[in-house]
Structures are given as structure tokens and as C-alpha cells.
């Protein structure tokens, strides 16, 4: 017990990286995903094709590989012209990656809204932007909440992938203690922290879903 309390403050000092990466990804990837979902329904074939190709590449390659490509690969390929700090590289890659997943989720949600809702808004003189913001998007959110929540849980756990570029998050710090002290306890502590984090996220998502239950 004494050992746990002795390393806990050090491990928790990595929490700002873990939590920071999570929130920055969520804030960046959600609107980007919505915009991409709209683009995937565009009448411009080239835009649709490009976005579908993007989603295919992003979802078809491991996040870890994308991180390594941006952090290690880009400086080599650009003769050290493009060099990102660790956290910036991680945030950029996570936003690009998660926006691809979110785009697919939101595309499905938008497609589920019947044309009749657009028609009803149209005959009331509501313009396209207002129709999307005030009428379509709230209904889309309700539809996509379960799968969006699932991705959020994945995102929490995926933040640990930052360790491949030596991002000093909770897992990276715990690994240092595990190796130095030849014990698995630091990993158990990190597992407990992730469990608390995902439990909190699950509770918040359930609360939001509950609020949406007011209407059907």
C-alpha cells in the first residue's frame, strides 16, 4: 500500500496529458466529423469520393501506425522541415483519426432522418443552415448517441497509444516505475485510472441519453 501511495502522485502527473488528449480530440474531431458527414452527402462526386477515400485510409490503418508516421515519418520524409512536438503530433493524429470514425457515425445518423423533416422545415421558410442546426442535428445526436458513446470509451483507452511516441502520459510513467521496481503494480494502478475514467464517461453518456428520452 505504501508503494502504491508513493508512486501514485507521479503517475497522476501524467493525467493532464491523457485527459488533455482526450478532450482536445473530442472537441476537434466531433465538428470535423459532422462536416465530413455532410460532405459525404454532397452532390459533388469528387468531394464524396475524396472523403470516402479518407475514411477508408483512416479506418483501414492502425492509429499507432498513423502516430508513428506523423511523428517519426514526416520529419524524415521532409528532411526535418515538418517536425511536430509530441503532444501536437498526437492531437493532430487523434483528431484526424477520430473524425473519420465520427464522420461514418454521423453520416448514418443524418441518413436516418426522413426527407419529410426537411420538407416540413422548407415550407415554413426555414433555411438550410437553420434546418440542419435546429431540426436535423438534435435528432441525429439522439440516434448516434450509443455508437458515439462507444467511440468515446475507445478514445479514452486509445490515448495510451501516445506512449509509442514517448508521450509522457499515465501509462508511460507507470511503465517507468514497473521496469525500475520490477513490479506489475503500476500497471494495475493505471488500469484502475482508465476504469474510473471510462466509468465517468459512461455515466455522463447515460445521463445525456436519459435527457434525450424526453422526446421520441
Amino acid at each position, binding site marked *: 500500500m505504501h508503494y502504491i501511495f508513493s508512486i501514485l502522485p507521479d503517475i497522476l502527473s501524467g493525467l493532464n496529458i491523457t485527459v488533455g488528449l482526450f478532450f482536445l480530440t473530442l472537441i476537434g474531431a466531433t465538428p470535423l466529423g459532422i462536416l465530413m458527414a455532410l460532405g459525404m452527402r454532397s452532390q459533388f462526386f469528387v468531394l464524396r469520393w475524396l472523403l470516402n477515400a479518407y475514411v477508408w485510409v483512416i479506418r483501414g490503418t492502425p492509429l499507432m501506425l498513423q502516430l508513428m508516421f506523423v511523428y517519426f515519418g514526416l520529419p524524415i520524409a521532409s528532411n526535418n522541415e515538418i517536425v511536430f512536438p509530441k503532444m501536437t503530433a498526437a492531437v493532430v493524429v487523434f483528431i484526424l483519426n477520430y473524425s473519420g470514425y465520427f464522420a461514418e457515425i454521423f453520416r448514418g445518423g443524418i441518413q436516418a432522418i426522413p426527407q419529410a423533416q426537411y420538407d416540413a422545415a422548407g415550407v*415554413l421558410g426555414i433555411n438550410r443552415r437553420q434546418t440542419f442546426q435546429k*431540426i436535423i442535428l438534435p435528432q441525429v445526436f439522439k440516434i448516434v448517441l450509443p455508437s458515439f458513446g462507444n467511440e468515446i470509451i475507445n478514445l479514452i483507452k486509445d490515448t495510451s497509444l501516445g506512449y509509442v511516441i514517448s508521450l509522457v502520459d499515465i501509462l508511460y510513467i507507470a511503465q517507468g516505475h514497473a521496469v525500475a521496481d520490477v513490479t506489475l503494480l503500476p500497471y494495475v494502478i493505471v488500469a484502475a485510472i482508465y476504469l474510473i475514467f471510462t466509468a465517468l464517461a459512461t455515466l455522463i453518456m447515460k445521463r445525456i441519453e436519459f435527457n434525450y428520452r424526453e422526446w421520441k
Partner: protein
Amino acid sequence: MLKIENLTKSYENKVVFKELNLEINDGEVLSIVGPSGIGKTTLLKIIAGLCGADSGKMVIDGQKINVTEKNQNALIGVIFQDFNLFPQYTVLGNITLAPRIVKNIETDQANSKAKKILDELGIEDKADLYPYQLSGGQKQRVAIARALAMEPKILAYDEPTSALDEFSTGQVVEVIKELKKREVTQMVITHDMPFAKKISDRIFDFKKEIVTK
């Protein structure tokens, strides 16, 4: 008054209607009758600006409307067959949304006007309910209230009785007659001839393109 001249619409080389002429006078109830699939709803969609025609002219209250393109200008209030209420808004929210965001009317003012309309339609006690909590007939009256709140030139119904039972149909007849007393111009698309006879000043047979009084 609404006047349509030589309206033609086709889908993928199939003519839906050709050189159609139609007039609706102020304050009258005109029913457009004909079998399902003949193009009545397409006509309603063109009049409401939800889709474009191939050619033709349309004038609403002296205002020329371009019928060859989508033209959603809220001149026609539409009560859809399935009502198409916005599920995330209460009855009051459904009615006040467009006045607030299209006409920039203050919320208080929009609310009091909506409550007045609901009162006139006999559903003032439903203001805080969501659409899923209403019966078919109540949803339809909310749809009518939502359209009336935008003060359209014409109120257009698409098959208003198809989703309703006999009792609710009787109530629609009463609502249409009540609105006629207030000189609201109404156009009713229906395949239900007995219903059309109950409510109409004139009936337009869509297939034969003739008007009877």
C-alpha cells in the same frame, strides 16, 4: 388568390401532368380529388415550392412565383399526410420555431400568438406535450397551428383524412369549416370524395381537369 397556368411536370420522361390550369379564390375551400398516384401530391409540392415544375406560371396574391425551381417561401402552409412535426420540440416549440427564427419574432410574442391559435383549435392544454404524446387528430391540429403561425396565403392539406379514424375525420371537417368562416383560403388534396363534398366550395377533378361546385 392563386392562379396556375399551363403547369407541366414530368419525371424521367414520364409526364405527370401537362398544361394544367387551376385557380383558387380568396377564402374558398378547393378540393383536388383523384385516385392515388395520379400526381396530386406532386402538384402540392410544386405549389409549396418543394420541387420544381418543367414549365408553367404561378401567381400568388399578385406575386409571380418561379415554378421551375425549388422556392420555399412560406407563402403556402402545408399540412402533410403524416404531419411531419418536429419530435424534439413540444407543441408550443413546433409552432413558435419558424416565427422566431424566420420572422425574428420575440419568444414571448410568438408564444402568446401560438397559444391563441391552439386555443382556437381547441388544443390549448397540449402546449407542453411532445408530438409522440398526441393522437393523430391532435397532431394534425398542431400541424395546422404550426402552418397558421406563419400566416400563409393558403393552407394546403395533403390527404388530411388518410391517417385518421372516423371521429378525427369529423373533427378535421369542423376545423376546415371553422377556418373557412375566418376566410382562410384552403386547398385540400384528397381521394376521399364524400369528405371533399362536405368541406369544399369547389372540387377540381385532377384526372378530368374539370371543376365542379
